[in-house]
């Protein structure tokens, strides 16, 4: 089931909200069970055949977590249990996500004729990572014992289950345990609806609106210079509005239940450097990779050379996490190289006087954006040949081909760029503060409130009116 569908907005969400708050009158546990069951129903719409795998994964990780948290095991045994747990998760992920890729590469190298066709379960990358973090924290002794319904809800919680944000148990489970979240709070419901409306608008009006232009670069015909740039820039903005729209919707939906989700985007195209970009783009994945991969690898504690090696390993695996294809590996590698250059520049580069700070920021933003755009070509292209072909067109201004059609398309792209660069983002508009669990403080100021409410009501209406048949989120396939 999609957030951007009439059945979700007019049927599923209201029914689940009503059930949650109705059960919350008499019990603190029943709403949790209700929400977990509703989440499984939600998940089953994306492929009911994968529900047993999800349940199995929850059961397995909860059992491993129990051994790590509740049993007094010697340290060697604890490490063995952790290894079994993490390996189990990675094996399942490997089979479902990477077996076909592995077989394809074997075929290419040795002509084995070995073919693997396994359908990728929706959301497997997200719920696997979430649970690996839980196991590692349990091993480190950073986890209190959780009840099974709360743990199951933490994994399955439908606002995040399919495409994140990647949640942390320490952030979520205490919220599920609080009785206050089971009582309807009109302020949180209103703020949740507004954030959901902004996300829906981003998806149905902005991302879906610019999607046809992407074919300019990645369509069946070889693009000209102008078409290649228009198509790639269109994809750059489509991906941002699509994924950040999804994250906004997830945050908004969750807020209606009284649960604060972590932020996933913070105007990434306003980043002044690649390091800054990764603090703003898919923030929960960046945090996960930092805490559970980069730092355990040694991070920056073992000298500068190893720091760069660790960065490259982290970004390569980050790329592979997105999809089992060489294009994603190259995308990750490019970002790894960007980050290494960025860190090297910070260490060895020129230090500009403070009066040039503004100019440096503008130049940094432009350069970062350009680097990100180039990397998106690999992220979007179906294969390496297409990616290289599109990049070669982008680098050859000889065949510009800037006609009337391209002018109109360029205008579209410019409007999207202006929104991404100059408009405030959702959390700025709504005053959403995940750390302090506050939102919508500005709504309490009476002067602008009616106008703001009518405007955001219109945004919700336009978002719903913009719903098209079968418009999936790009990140569903990861």
């Amino acid at each position, binding site marked *: 089931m999609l957030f951007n569908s009439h059945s979700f907005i007019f049927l599923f969400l209201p029914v689940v909200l009503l059930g949650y708050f109705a059960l919350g009158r008499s019990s603190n546990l029943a709403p949790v069970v209700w929400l977990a069951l509703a989440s499984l129903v939600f998940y089953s719409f994306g492929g009911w055949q994968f529900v047993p795998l999800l349940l199995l994964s929850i059961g397995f990780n909860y059992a491993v977590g129990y051994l790590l948290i509740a049993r007094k095991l010697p340290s060697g045994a604890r490490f063995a249990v952790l290894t079994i747990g993490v390996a189990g998760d990675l094996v399942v992920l490997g089979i479902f996500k990477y077996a076909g890729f592995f077989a394809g590469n074997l075929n290419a190298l040795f002509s084995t004729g070995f073919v693997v066709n396994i359908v990728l379960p929706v959301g497997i990358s997200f719920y696997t990572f979430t649970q690996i973090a839980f196991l590692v924290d349990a091993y480190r002794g950073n986890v209190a014992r959780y009840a099974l319904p709360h743990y199951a809800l933490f994994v399955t919680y439908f606002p995040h289950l399919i495409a994140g944000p990647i949640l942390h148990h320490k952030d979520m489970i205490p919220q599920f345990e609080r009785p206050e979240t089971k009582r309807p709070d009109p302020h949180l419901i*209103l703020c949740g609806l507004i954030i959901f409306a902004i996300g829906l608008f981003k998806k149905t009006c902005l991302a879906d609106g610019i999607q046809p232009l992407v074919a300019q670069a990645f369509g069946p015909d070889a693009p000209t210079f102008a078409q290649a740039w228009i198509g790639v820039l269109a994809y750059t903005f489509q991906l941002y509005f699509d994924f950040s729209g999804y994250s906004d919707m997830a945050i908004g939906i969750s807020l209606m239940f009284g649960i604060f989700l972590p932020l996933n985007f913070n105007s990434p195209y306003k980043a002044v450097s690649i390091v800054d970009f990764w603090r703003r783009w898919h923030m929960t994945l960046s945090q996960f990779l930092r805490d559970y991969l980069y730092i355990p690898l040694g991070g920056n504690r073992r000298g500068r050379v190893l720091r760069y090696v660790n960065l490259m390993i982290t970004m390569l695996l980050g790329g592979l996490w997105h999809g089992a294809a060489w294009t994603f590996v190259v995308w990750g590698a490019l970002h790894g190289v960007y980050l290494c250059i960025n860190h090297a520049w910070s260490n060895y580069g020129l230090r500009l006087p403070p009066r040039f700070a503004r100019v440096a920021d503008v130049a940094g933003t432009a350069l970062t954006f350009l680097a990100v755009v180039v990397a998106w070509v690999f992220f979007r292209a179906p294969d390496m040949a297409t990616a290289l072909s599109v990049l070669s067109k982008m680098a050859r201004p000889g065949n510009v081909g800037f006609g009337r059609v391209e002018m109109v398309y360029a205008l579209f792209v410019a409007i999207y760029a202006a929104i991404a660069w100059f408009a405030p983002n959702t959390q700025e508009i709504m005053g959403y503060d995940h750390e302090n669990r506050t939102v919508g403080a500005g709504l309490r100021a009476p002067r602008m409130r009616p106008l703001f*409410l009518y405007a955001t009501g219109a945004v919700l209406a336009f978002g719903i009116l913009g719903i098209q048949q079968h418009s999936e989120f790009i990140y569903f396939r990861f």
Partner: protein
Amino acid sequence: MSMASKDLWRFLCAAAAIFLLAAALNFTVDPLQLFRPARLFPAMYSADSRMQDAGLIRSQDFDTVFMGTSLAVHFRQSDIDKALGVRSLKLAMNGSTSREQAFVLGAAMDRHPKRVIWQMDDWIFRNAPEVDSDVYVPADLYRRNAKGIAGYLFSGAMARESLWIAARAIPPLEPIVARLTNGLMFKFPISRVDDINALRSDFDLAGFYNAQNAVASFKRITDSARSVSIAEGYDLDAMVRNFERDAVALIERNPDVTFEIYFAPYSILHFVAMRDASPATLKVAHEFAAYAFPLLLQFPNVRLHDFRGVKDVTHDLGNYGDVIHHSPAIDLKILSWLAERKYLVDRAAPLVSLERLKAQVEAYKVDP
């Protein structure tokens, strides 16, 4: 009621008001003319046939339906009317499958046409999924059920078109709106039914339809890297199933309607490409015709024309933009052949034209 609750109601009411306003606008302007013919606002049409046909079936007067794929989509209704003495409605859709065609024709049958002219080939019967799983066909709009009507009225994209059409009806705005209406930003840029998907008068016919393009296309599809796509979907059993479900069933259900079916004059290169790059596919294509022709001719309400062996046309590569798509000049020839009932397949010897085609394909030599 708390302030937050009041705000929540305000927000929801504002959203509902805009939502209903968009529906009212769509109902009033009615870009597809589903509810009434255009009177208050100028009639405008879309090149997206799968959507536009749902409205055309309701809004137009016709006694003859013209169906087909991209090979039929450029025909002008005025030419059809003139050549055949009918009042036609063109419902051809680019790249359409037999399922899509049969579904749209089925909807048109509710208006009781006397005749269907159907450009048919083996290609349309390859992969023909149900229309409800086909994202390109607004099936419920054709069915006119609650879901289809609601989807039409509560569509933001349609509201944008409605607003645009309404702006075009305001005299001072008309010239500027007409100038900006170009199909890039708006889906309803065509002001005459006859112009829907017809080639524009400034289209470079000689630059597009010439032997060079046809040969280049032949080389492209027979290139070893791409030639596998020639065989895509050519499974005889599946094609026969789709043929019986979509073509035969529709003909059977409408005995009072004359079905004038023609197999389009593809360039000979189309079959030669199969012969050279995928002989098994050519065999399937021939076997399909050998099965379909006699079956079609069992129905008294079917007239079958096979133009595939009209050597004067199919061997003259200057008539083609690639290996299958012929020029508008051939459109007119097809109409004249239909009017004169030329190249009719004989009920007593339904496979003669197929044998002629086979011989031509075997004999054809590609210039190096």
